[in-house]
């Protein structure tokens, strides 16, 4: 005997009807419009005053490869400095000590409140303020020798990044349930041990996507260091076009390299995110 109630007259038996394919007219229309726009754009660039062979030729010349290597080195080092400072500032900001708290707030205010390019120029021109740098009685040197383009760029980018990263870190720390900190306290952990072992590992999960964002921003922000003579890829591309006047071609070369580096970073970030997703529910996987 069937457990299904029999259908009332006038209701078709849906089980026997085939499913009709839905036509997504809007999607077809949008796709056609975009293909047409891309074709026009492609034709414009092909017909425009760009010598594509130059792009291909300069893509892998040693000066450009040097430049992109310097770009990657600077981005990694400045981001590392930014993360170290960011964690320290975030922890200070959340400390009960009012002195540490205001120092942290002041740091963020100062370095987030002024343009990055201005900070780079200030570091690079530090010799104008302090001709001699050093620790009294221990060591000193001429500021022009110490504040090389490399060190100026590293300090400028890293310290600025620290201000932004500290806010990302603070958001991550605040996202961890207070019960986790209380549980850490009840097994005798002090504030710093609890932060290191319990809070920060869990904050990482929340912090990684915005941190990946910040790192991608950093890769591109290194181009600002071209104004203080740091030989990163944009600076080197400029040097070439000052000589051969192939401005657009060399800018495209630099642009392609930035795109490549950023494209490699995205899957790396996903690997890291998976690592720190330990113990979270498997929903959405």
């Amino acid at each position, binding site marked *: 005997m069937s457990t299904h109630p029999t259908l009332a007259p006038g209701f078709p038996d849906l089980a026997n009807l085939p499913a009709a394919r839905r036509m997504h007219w809007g999607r077809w229309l949008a796709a056609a419009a975009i293909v047409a726009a891309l074709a026009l754009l492609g034709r414009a660039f092909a017909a425009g005053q760009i010598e594509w062979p130059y792009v291909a030729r300069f893509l892998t010349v040693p000066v450009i490869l040097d430049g992109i290597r310097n770009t990657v080195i600077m981005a990694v080092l400045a981001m590392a400095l930014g993360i170290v400072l960011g964690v320290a500032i975030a922890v200070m900001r959340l400390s009960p000590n009012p002195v540490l708290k205001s120092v942290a707030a002041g740091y963020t205010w100062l370095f987030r409140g002024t343009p990055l390019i201005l900070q780079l120029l200030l570091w690079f021109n530090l010799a104008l303020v302090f001709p001699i740098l050093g620790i009294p009685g221990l060591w000193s040197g001429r500021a022009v020798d110490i504040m090389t383009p490399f060190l100026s760029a590293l300090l400028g980018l890293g310290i600025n990044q620290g201000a932004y990263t500290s806010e990302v870190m603070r958001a991550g720390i605040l996202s961890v*349930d207070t*019960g*986790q900190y*209380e*549980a*850490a*306290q*009840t*097994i*005798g*952990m*002090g*504030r710093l*041990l609890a932060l290191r*072992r*319990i809070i920060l*590992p*869990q904050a990482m999960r929340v912090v990684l996507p915005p941190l990946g964002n910040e790192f991608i921003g950093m890769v591109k922000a290194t181009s600002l260091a071209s104004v203080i003579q740091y030989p990163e890829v944009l600076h080197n591309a400029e040097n070439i076009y000052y000589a051969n006047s192939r401005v657009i071609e060399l800018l495209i070369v630099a642009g392609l390299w930035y795109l490549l580096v950023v494209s490699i970073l995205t899957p790396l970030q996903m690997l890291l995110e998976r690592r*720190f997703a*330990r*113990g*979270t*529910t*498997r929903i959405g996987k």
Partner: protein
Amino acid sequence: MTPLVAIRDVRKRFGSFEALKGVSLDVTAGQVLCLIGASGSGKTTLLRCVNQLAEIDSGGIWLDGELLGLRADNGRLHRLSEAQIAKQRLKTGMVFQRFNLFAHMTALQNITEGPVQVQRRRPAEVTEEAMDLLRRVGLADKAASYPSELSGGQQQRVAIARALAMRPKLMLFDEPTSALDPELVGEVLAVMRELASTGMTMMVVTHELGFAREVADRVVYMDAGAIVEAGTPTEVLETPREPRTQAFLSAVIRR
């Protein structure tokens, strides 16, 4: 015999709300004490003061003969440093209503974390002891599971094992079964019952009157930040003298 826990005239306020209005209480070693009362009566706050998760405003709490959180010196009271408070906390284990297991660690890692990182004991020895504890709470097969993979009852049993791994002298339970589905309450109470039978000193904030009747040596009824009535389970739960206790019990039983 000096009590393991001596609470004297403890007051605590949150803003304008007086959570504890001068509470005094003794817990002798080996005793199981159940704190009952409506929410907002101050029983959880009292427990948190014993563990120094909340700071008392006045009065004093002595644990194992040691004044908690304060030091009398040259006729003045000095607040202890964070490190000294952390050290005092090692004598107590705490079990939370919401379990609060470390979400990024397996059950086993949750238990070994404190002994290894705080007490600096040898990892091999700690792991062995942690496995014994997991067996004791009936979860030896869940050592590698993360909290998110465990039921509420299982998480709470791991939380009890985590607290016991620190070898505390006093175990504090803050409504350990209130966040559990009804069918999971029994397994947690069974572990607590077993723990009580080994002579562990326990302070239990609970709504489980059956557990209090069966396991407690002493039951304390609190209301509005003060102790209204204290005595044996029979005295407080069967033949309460205070009208407020009677009203509370009849409201709970009628529910």
